[in-house]
């Protein structure tokens, strides 16, 4: 009985794995295919699309913009979300519930609604759309994640480490820098990385809030309308996929180092 269950389970696991991975692998395979049409049978191996990729200045610009937006918005989100996390994890204050409710609202608001609301705000204030407007949008959606990740970490540690530091004469801000922040560091790094990934991939907000400068997803989306440019879009996708897998493996490796147990004496 249990043995049958095991084989059935394994079969189902492999099927689902195939379902989830095959579409991604297809994109990678087609990025090396010597044809404008994305159809089988494959026409032979080529690096033509990759060569064209290097010459597509618009695309490279878009990638740079995405990188910049990702960096700035995740730094800001980590600082603001981290401060909020310390406040809600270490203080009981009137309005704490209210603050928590508002601050986590961006988790459930549909992105299209947030995008439209920000678009209206910038129009009403006559602020021209630019990379900055996208950064603001991405900061808003990343802040609650940072706050929850860091607060969860902090509430895992009792307050007495900080109290001990202050009893020993450290100032409050000194304690914050030398005790609270180091405690939260793994959570802060994790929150920063996930914010960056989120921002780099985000399409909806970027689509509505982009001015003349595109982000990578917005640029890709604009290319999907032209069938002749589909191979280039697929090749970009393949590059992004391979780079993300490398980054993922790298951060997983870092995480293992960070959480590995000290050798036993």
């Amino acid at each position, binding site marked *: 009985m249990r043995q049958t*269950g095991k084989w059935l*389970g*394994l079969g189902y*696991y492999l099927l*689902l794995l195939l*379902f*989830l991975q095959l*579409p*991604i692998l*297809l*994109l990678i395979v087609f990025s090396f295919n010597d044809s404008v049409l*994305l*159809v089988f049978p494959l026409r032979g191996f080529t690096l033509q699309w990759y060569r064209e990729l290097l010459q597509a200045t618009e695309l490279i610009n878009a990638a740079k913009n995405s990188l910049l937006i990702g960096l700035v918005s995740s730094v800001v989100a980590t600082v*603001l979300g981290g*401060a*909020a996390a310390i*406040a*809600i*994890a*270490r*203080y009981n204050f009137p309005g*704490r519930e209210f*603050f928590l*409710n508002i*601050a986590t*609202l*961006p*988790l*459930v608001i*549909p*992105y*299209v*609604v*947030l995008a*439209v*609301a*920000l678009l*209206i*705000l910038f*129009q*009403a204030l006559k602020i021209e759309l630019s990379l900055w407007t996208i950064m603001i*949008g991405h*900061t*808003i959606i990343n*802040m609650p994640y940072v706050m*929850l990740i860091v607060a969860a970490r902090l*509430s895992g540690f009792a307050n007495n480490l900080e109290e001990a530091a202050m009893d020993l004469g*450290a*100032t*409050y*801000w000194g304690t914050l820098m030398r005790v609270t922040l180091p405690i939260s560091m793994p959570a802060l790094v994790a929150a920063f990385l996930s914010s960056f*990934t989120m921002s780099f*991939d985000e*399409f909806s907000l970027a689509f509505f809030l982009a001015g003349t400068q595109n982000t990578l997803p917005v640029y*890709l*989306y604009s290319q999907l309308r032209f069938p002749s440019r589909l191979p280039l879009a697929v090749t970009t*996708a393949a590059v992004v996929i391979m780079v*993300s*897998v490398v980054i*993922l493996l790298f951060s997983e490796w870092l995480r293992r180092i960070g959480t590995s147990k000290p050798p036993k004496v």
Partner: protein
Amino acid sequence: MGRSPTLLPAQDTPVENKRRLFALITPPSVFLLFFFMVPLVIMALYTMKESSFGPLFPLSFEAFRSFFSNPAYFVLLLSSSQLALFTALLSILLAYPVSYYLVFYTGSRRVILLTLLILPAWISYLLRVLAWKVILGSEGLLNQLLISAGLIENGAPILLFSQAAVLITLVYVWIPFAALPIFAAMERIDPRLHEAAADLGASPGVTFWRVTFPLTMPGVASAFFFVFIPTLGEWVTPNLVGGVSGIMYGNLIQDQFGRALNWPLGALMSMVLLVLVGVFSYVFNRFIPITEVPVSS
């Protein structure tokens, strides 16, 4: 910083405490106020504007009139809710057995097997949808396969540009996110409960329905929540693989800020969606709190 520590114990007066809290909480609050609360309020005001770029006054209820007099909008809102419901249920249905297998059958390898399974979740959402456009497209792989198998006539694509295509793509996108909370809930189950049930004479089926399943309900519920809500506001997937018959309510909103250029109506449609999501989250949160953070002092 910079100050050398004094030898006196830190003074922790209520006033100082308040100042510190104020310094911590003000920057995030101000940011949220300006770029989250204020935009929503302005959007609410925009629903009463006469034209997209005109002045606010005199107030006009044209957007309300056209929204509530057109049943097509409600039909679309309803069908989008239905699609979001199906997406959430199907993702859970597909993710549940695999989580069960991983947690109860694969021992210490389960984390690596799970990571392998949900790897695609780390890949850009847009790219995953693009992959399905390549598969389901009218020139796509599935149609070719069916044509060469003689199952359909050439040029009669059956899947792309339909609700089914949107559903398949969305389920594909969301399975990893449904699997995570279910997996986590199952991992928390004490295996001794299963032994106890078996010792007391329960069959595996009874053990599952009376012990395992109820204990995984919180995971199933949060999986439902995190799939249903974003799918409800979805517009990108329908745009890429849905075609005319596959459009969702989110496309309607996008259209008001694009081609149709009717910002007041678009603002109203957004408000309606926001209220719907708000009511749903509120009701849901009463049963399963997702944002509780304990104070540790």
